């Protein structure tokens, strides 16, 4: 799909804090214009990995390039071309929207600063907050401002660390529309998230847990690779069933999904046999496609055991 060299191309990237290996020999290749979703439980090393890519942390092992520059030795050359959005709002609360953008664009030496700021403010609809202190913005608008700040210098790569945490669905949708627009312009984005709907909007995914890469590929590839079979049970008095189902052979997950239960397992035959008794009325049983969340939880359980 893209013949140009990958924007991110790292192998064996490792970070150790004290005695804890937070990122353990991780490989990743991301092509130009790709939206790459980065998923995994809390503390799985996503933030650490992203920080290593842009020079905020020094890798303890491994090598590779980001935008063609060595991640170990050329952090200073990578920085000007990367837009990084940290998990926590990290602009100045006590400065206005405009002052923040002005400061950031000065830091990057943006040409025609005033025009660039106006353009960004216009594009992100921040006009009416222009002179408002950043600290007084609501979560969604703070996140828009942070995104504005990380693209004002027209970076080639966006590293977004849980950019939509705590933001309402409407603002999240706007945000993703913006990311897709940028990808259309050839900008690459690596985005970490906990939201499954967001994962599904990515071109490709990587799932990491406890520092290890567990799965990569498109949503369909990741789901297929796990080989998880899922049944839906509907009927009355389902809560009483949950514990009973969990003890059955072949059953790996039982999740209440509204008024139904989703029961998943990787051993299709064993699972089918175990669930057979629950097909009788008043219950109904049917096989459904496994969703991403079930796949991820399955991946995570495997990583623990």
């Amino acid at each position, binding site marked *: 799909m893209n013949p140009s060299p990958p924007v991110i191309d790292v192998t064996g990237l490792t970070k150790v804090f004290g005695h804890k290996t937070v990122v353990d020999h991780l490989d990743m290749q991301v092509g130009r214009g790709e939206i790459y979703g980065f998923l995994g439980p809390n503390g799985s090393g996503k933030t650490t990995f992203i*920080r290593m890519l*842009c*020079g*905020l*942390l*020094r890798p303890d092992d491994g090598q590779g390039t980001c935008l063609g520059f060595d991640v170990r030795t050329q*952090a*200073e050359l990578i*920085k*000007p071309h*990367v837009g*990084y959005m*940290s998990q*926590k*709002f*990290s*602009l*100045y*609360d006590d400065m206005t929207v405009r002052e923040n953008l002005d400061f*950031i664009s000065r*830091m*990057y*030496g943006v040409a025609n600063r005033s025009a660039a700021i106006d353009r960004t403010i216009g594009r992100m609809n921040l006009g009416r907050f222009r002179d408002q202190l950043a600290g007084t913005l609501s979560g969604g608008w703070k996140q828009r401002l942070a995104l504005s*700040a990380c693209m004002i210098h027209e970076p080639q790569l966006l590293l977004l660390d849980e950019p939509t945490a705590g933001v309402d669905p409407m603002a999240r949708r706007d945000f993703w529309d913006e990311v897709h627009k940028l990808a259309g312009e050839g900008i690459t984005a690596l985005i970490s998230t906990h939201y499954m709907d967001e994962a599904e909007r990515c071109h490709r995914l990587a799932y990491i847990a406890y520092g290890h890469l567990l799965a990569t590929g498109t949503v369909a590839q990741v789901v297929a690779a796990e080989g998880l079979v899922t049944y839906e049970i509907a009927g009355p008095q389902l809560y009483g069933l949950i514990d009973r189902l969990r003890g059955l052979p072949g059953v790996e997950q039982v999740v209440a999904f509204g008024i139904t239960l989703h029961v998943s397992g990787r051993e299709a035959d064993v699972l089918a046999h175990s669930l057979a008794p629950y097909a009788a009325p008043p219950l109904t049983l049917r096989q459904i496609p496994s969703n991403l969340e079930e796949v991820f939880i399955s991946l995570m359980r495997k990583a623990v055991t």
Partner: protein
Amino acid sequence: MARIVTFSLIRFAAMVSKEFTQMRRDRVTFGMMVGIPLLQLILFGYAINSDPKNLPTAILDNDRSVFSRDMAMAMQNSSYFKFTQAIGTEAEADELLRLGRIQFVVTFPVNFGRDLARGDRPVVLLEADATDPSATSNAVSAIRQAATDAFTRDLTGPLIALRPANGPVELRLHARYNPEAVTQYNIVPGLMGVVLTMTLVIITSLAITRERERGTMENLLITPVRPVEVLLGKMLPYIVVGYIQMGLIIIAAMTLFKVPVIGSLPLLFLVSFPFIAANLGVGITFSTIAQNQLQAVQMSFFFFLPSILLSGFMFPFQGMPEWAQWIGSVLPLTHYLRVVRGIVLKGNTFVDIAPHMWPIGLFLFASLGLGIKRYRQTLD
């Protein structure tokens, strides 16, 4: 509506144990809690002496007789005076006092011994650097005693009649630079150094810590900005603040306290630059060490306490034991106080104060160098 006002011992105990847990985690705060009282105890208990002894004294002996030597010996025995040099001329005495090398000059006139033997009550002149009145007052009363004691032994037998009721010698005291011994003349110029030290160290120590605590450091580090740009960019505004503070204190000193400004104010402003920068360097270094703003403030106090107590601001420098003087000599405030008092009260010129400038400069480079070295360009 029923309000629950009962006191729960369980909740209370949980609260207490939580506080202790957090206290234990916050190593710096814990260290300060132990360190500050110990430091105060040591400084107040051992280092500070409001009755300073062994004050450096120069002797100008125009008589060189057994009597002048006896009196000098008696002065030394009083333990208030320590003769550090013998000089030959009045000009040398002036020079040493002006530079603050010595606290006193004692002058014996020609024919001191002869006049004494004749019962003519010769005049002994004691010139004191009175910029800090508390350093001299006890020594002055000691010399009176010394004069009496010295000659009770000599004036015996046939000379016993020479012991006049009002003492064998006439003591004349010249309190130089601050003849009325107005404490404010000493305190107010010194206060300038103290205020600069306190405010500048605290403000800059918060500068980087605040960025880290609020999470804005991450955003700053991701930009191509260089450490020196960050550090100097944070220092420059406070240099301006420092000069504004200086201006205010000088105006107050001249108008409210009527402190006579003898030396050159432009010189004072010029030579204050390294001092201001040195304090900012300390603050910057603290801010690279402190985990949060509270720790930064605590560290600032840790620096401020010896600065105020061992610099000669509150208590006479010469009166402190040698180890305390040694610590004091490292601190920029100690040298800056001599510079300020020298310029304001004694009319010192640049050449006079130059010996106090290089320790400040050295401190500046050390603190700033440490700050830059410790400043991390990564979040590691």
